[in-house]
């Protein structure tokens, strides 16, 4: 069955499978111990750390392994805000960050921080000038007790996970550098798919999104950036960078193998996948009335394209496409647990119902996309014909 939901998770890369299987035999021992098997596990973990750090543009000792991209984002935000508590309590964050970043910022707000949320245009892109302006801290406190506070953290994703739009990270990074504000770049959507932008103070990503195994997140903290683990026990002891608990050495090695492989084939893959997403981008609006392609058509991730079909129920569309053999996801509210519309689409000010995110894994064939493009117009037309508002039962 054609799988078109790589932005949720990329299938395990063949190179990762090979690395995982061999490391299950070679890297099982406790890398914190001092005997032969343990030293071998430690060596493998150090290699994995070194290889991933190199691709992300950092040093091995700047890289921590976490249990997920979500945990990496939580730790990045909480650990920076906590370490810089005496410096101030203002945070700048884009409106379209992954929920893990937004949730961590909300927790800081509950603990007394003030956050400025920077909006986006209709393509989902942050305006660098607006981001820069937000770095000027507001006055906080009641009317009788106003006090200025310093901005202690700014957060901007490398690219958006729902619509693919690439963010102006390097522009934001130079403003942050001038203002001495650390910048967290959540690169989960783009790592292994496009070059890591320069200028980050903290960087987070997730291995299963680049073809590694689930259960491996990464948090890179640039040397000199003030950060303290908010987990019990404080600074991670010498576990080869594993931020908490027993290191999964085989998974770390598989993550490194997948990232190396994706990086090695990145240009080929980018050209191939972009040709296919461009085909979807150009054909759909011509083939299907009242359809809209979201995001920036050019400055976007090569493998993601998000389309909205007016008057269509997103969940029903996902179900019908599944019946036709295609796995895609939707950011429509009715497909989420919360019943809230996607915060990304809401921030863009675009229609939040009736959308699907099509995201191509590395092995996607032209034939799959052509079949998808054949199936989609009829599916949308059938769903539109079947939706009778008078018959819809009020809940």
């Amino acid at each position, binding site marked *: 069955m054609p799988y078109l939901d790589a932005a949720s998770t990329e299938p395990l890369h063949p190179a990762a499978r090979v690395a995982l299987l061999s490391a299950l035999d070679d890297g099982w021992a406790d890398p914190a111990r001092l005997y032969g098997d343990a030293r071998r596990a430690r060596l493998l973990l150090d290699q994995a750390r070194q290889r991933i750090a190199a691709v992300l543009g950092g040093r091995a000792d700047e890289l921590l392994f976490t249990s997920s991209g979500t945990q990496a984002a939580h730790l990045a935000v909480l650990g920076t805000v906590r370490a810089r508590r005496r410096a101030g309590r203002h945070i700048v964050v884009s409106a379209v960050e992954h929920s893990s970043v937004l949730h961590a910022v909300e927790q800081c707000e509950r603990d007394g921080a003030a956050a400025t949320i920077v909006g986006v245009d209709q393509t989902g892109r942050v305006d660098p000038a607006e981001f820069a302006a937000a770095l000027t801290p507001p006055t906080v406190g009641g009317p009788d007790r106003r006090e200025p506070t310093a901005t202690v953290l700014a957060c901007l994703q490398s690219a958006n996970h729902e619509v693919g739009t690439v963010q102006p990270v390097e522009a934001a990074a130079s403003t942050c550098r001038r203002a001495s504000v650390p910048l967290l770049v959540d690169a989960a959507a783009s790592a292994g798919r496009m070059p890591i932008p320069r200028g980050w103070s903290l960087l987070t990503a997730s291995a299963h999104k680049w073809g590694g195994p689930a259960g491996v997140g990464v948090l890179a903290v640039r040397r000199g950036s003030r950060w303290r683990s908010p987990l019990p026990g404080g600074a991670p002891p010498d576990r080869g960078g594993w931020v908490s608990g027993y290191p999964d050495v085989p998974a770390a090695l598989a993550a490194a193998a997948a990232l190396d492989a994706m990086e090695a084939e990145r240009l080929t893959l980018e050209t191939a996948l972009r040709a296919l997403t461009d085909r979807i981008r150009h054909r759909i609006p011509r083939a299907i009335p009242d359809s*809209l392609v979201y995001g920036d058509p050019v400055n976007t991730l090569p493998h993601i394209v998000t389309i909205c079909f*007016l*008057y*269509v*129920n997103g969940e029903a569309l996902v179900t019908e496409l599944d019946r036709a053999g295609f796995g895609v996801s939707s950011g*429509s*509210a*009715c497909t989420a647990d919360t*019943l*809230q*519309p996607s915060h990304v*689409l*809401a921030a863009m*000010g*675009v*229609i*939040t*119902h*009736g959308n699907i995110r099509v995201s191509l894994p590395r092995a996607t064939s032209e034939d799959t996309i052509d079949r998808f493009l054949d199936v989609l117009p009829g599916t949308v037309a059938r769903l539109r014909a079947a*939706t009778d*508002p008078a018959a*819809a039962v*009020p*809940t």
Partner: protein
Amino acid sequence: MSTQHQPAPPLPSLTIDALGRKCPIPIIMLAEQIRDVPVGAVLAVLADDPAARTDVPAWCGLKSQEFVVEQTLPRGWAFLVRRCY
């Protein structure tokens, strides 16, 4: 959103009750029934799906109809839309 210093919102000549309906139903009802009011007239969409707060203004922008105002109701919201053509 405070309406205190703004002129009183126009009275709708048609009210669509989409309370209890999930998007896209309120938008489908709006698209179908806007043709039932004269050009220049205002209609109201009552809805309590939070997605309507984004979708009604976005639909108006897309279809070049005028989104007038959102009013908070005890249950949900009233969205006033002026038919432009």
